[in-house]
């Protein structure tokens, strides 16, 4: 009996040690942080037998490398910007599609990060804002749906309009639930997300129901028709930069400090005279506006949207990429989006063949299995996210301390 216990304990200890070592290795050894991504990039980019989607893969690895290596300096960002523009030219349609999705989800991630990362409000229904942006735009411009609301509104006009409406929705949804904290807020926002989707599905008279809104006209940039993900990619990229810029500016402003105070200790913040209601609503509104803007671009790219496009998975994906990237900073969101949105797609073409097992279809068949395991692995190895902001990292330490102190 005793020996069995000893054995379990030894095993447990060994596992703990292995885990700690792996984590330490990831943190400490430049080989893993810098050299490995580069090596992977080179090998992956040159190895069609591993990945067909080589430019995307190379881009992902390179951006990862840059994100890990440089702090925000002009040179790094310039290289990044140049690559973000140049590499897509080398890409095929599929890779551009992936890139568009990564960029779009980065934008959504930045929006949600304001709510979750900055203000500390756990929102599992972010898709509501994304959906409302997309549907507002689609219903207004697509003549097929809703009996011709076609008022000839331009795509460009619709972006701010949809953002404003999404922000209003954010406030409307936020108001009743502000008293809720933590996980209660999470489930209520999840409920809101589902309510919005179900209403889109059920109110045939307004939204055309499950048949969706289709034949959404293309956006135009002067005379140029933005036909597909490639052209719209630049628009999303602009959206990402504007959102990122705005997000970082706000975070470092008085508003950001108020959010931080609320996140740390809402009661204390309130006692210090921070108008918590206002700032929480503000976080919802800004996050919603960014989500709504993303929705408009999504609808324009997709040309057909359905209630089912806006299910819980979207909210979960966005939340997961924010957390995996490392809450509270934009670089983390970019990295998270690449991993969460890019990886499953790039994995489609991943194949290994050796010995007696034919894994030629491993990517196509098992990509989501691999993906699930990867989520766990990343979290276990980097619980604070891959690129936590330094401020957040400090909080992490503190949280650990509080954890023991308060014995939660």
């Amino acid at each position, binding site marked *: 009996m005793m020996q069995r216990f000893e054995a379990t304990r030894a095993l447990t200890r060994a596992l703990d040690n292995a885990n700690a070592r792996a984590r330490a290795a990831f943190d400490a050894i430049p080989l893993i942080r810098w050299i490995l991504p580069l090596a992977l990039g080179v090998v992956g980019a040159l190895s069609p037998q591993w990945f067909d989607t080589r430019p995307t893969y190379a881009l992902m690895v390179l951006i990862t490398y840059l994100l890990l290596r440089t702090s925000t300096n002009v040179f790094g960002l310039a290289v990044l910007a140049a690559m973000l523009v140049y590499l897509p030219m080398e890409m095929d349609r599929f890779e551009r599609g992936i890139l568009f999705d990564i960029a779009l989800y980065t934008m959504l991630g930045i929006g949600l990060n304001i709510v979750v990362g900055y203000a500390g409000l756990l929102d599992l229904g972010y898709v509501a804002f994304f959906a409302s942006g997309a549907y507002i735009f689609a219903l207004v411009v697509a003549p097929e749906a809703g009996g011709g609301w076609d008022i000839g509104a331009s795509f460009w006009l619709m972006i701010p309009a949809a953002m404003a409406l999404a922000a209003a929705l954010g406030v409307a949804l936020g108001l009743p639930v502000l008293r809720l904290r933590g996980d209660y807020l999470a489930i209520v926002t999840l409920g809101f997300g589902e309510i919005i989707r179900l209403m889109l599905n059920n109110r045939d008279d307004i939204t055309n129901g499950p048949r969706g809104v289709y034949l959404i006209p293309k956006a135009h940039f002067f005379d140029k028709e933005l036909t597909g993900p490639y052209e719209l990619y630049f628009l999303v990229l602009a959206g990402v930069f504007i959102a990122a810029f705005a997000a970082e500016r706000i975070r470092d402003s008085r508003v950001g400090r108020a959010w931080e105070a609320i996140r740390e200790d809402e009661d204390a913040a309130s006692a210090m005279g921070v108008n918590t209601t206002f700032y929480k609503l503000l976080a919802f509104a800004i996050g919603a506006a960014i989500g709504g803007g993303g929705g408009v671009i999504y609808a324009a790219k997709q040309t057909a949207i359905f209630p089912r496009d806006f299910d819980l998975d979207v909210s979960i994906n966005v939340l997961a990429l924010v957390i995996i990237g490392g809450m509270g900073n934009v670089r983390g969101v970019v990295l998270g989006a690449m991993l969460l949105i890019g990886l499953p797609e790039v994995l489609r073409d991943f194949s290994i063949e050796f010995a007696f097992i034919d894994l030629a279809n491993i990517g196509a068949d098992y990509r989501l299995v691999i993906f699930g395991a990867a989520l766990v692995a990343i979290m276990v190895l980097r619980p604070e996210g891959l690129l936590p902001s330094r401020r957040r990292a400090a909080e992490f330490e*503190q949280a*650990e*301390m509080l954890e*023991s*102190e308060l014995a939660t």
Partner: protein
Amino acid sequence: MTAERAYLELAEVVSGYGQIMAIKGVSLRVERGEIVALIGSNGAGKSTTLRTISGLLRPRSGEIWFEGRRIDRAPPHEIVARGVSHAPEGRAIFARMTVMDNLRLGAYRRSGAEVERDIEHVLTLFPRLRERGRQDGGTLSGGEQQMLAIARALMARPRILLLDEPSMGLAPVLVETIFRTVLEINREGTTILLVEQNAAIALQVAHRGYILESGAIALEASAAELRESDAVRRTYLGID
């Protein structure tokens, strides 16, 4: 340095939270049957010391010995099993459990009729708790909660009792009652390591004392000597 270890011995213990080390090399000894007071101001590392002994914190370095065995790598429940019982700071009563359940939890590692006998015993030590037996822990007053915390710690039949700030937030009358009981517990054969901000009362009941400052032991002496020491009087007793 002799190889012989004290009943409870801390040797160069460094411990804390995350990157912040609240104690930076604490060494102290408690002999069997003693009451030892650990005195220091807020943030000196007193609670951290106790939490490290009871295993809630794993020391970054240093050794902790109890009854001749190292305990600094053991998980808290094993340390309890070896006879170390800790009544933590702020009492930490299980508010949603009845007083009786709180006491039974104290005897978690034991079972049977002797637990009921022990309950009877601690209820004689703290008669106030008897009246409150069916009530939820959260409904007790501060003093009652402190009594419950000590009573609960006794339920483990400790050989050494770690008491963290038993006087905190209590009216002087209650403080006196509690310390009288502490003395009684000690007379029954339980060694006590007592952490207190209220140095005056701690040094009255203790045999020896340590002064902890910014995570290190500043002074060690018998309680009487400490009571007389100018430095201690100035800093911890207030000049009267």
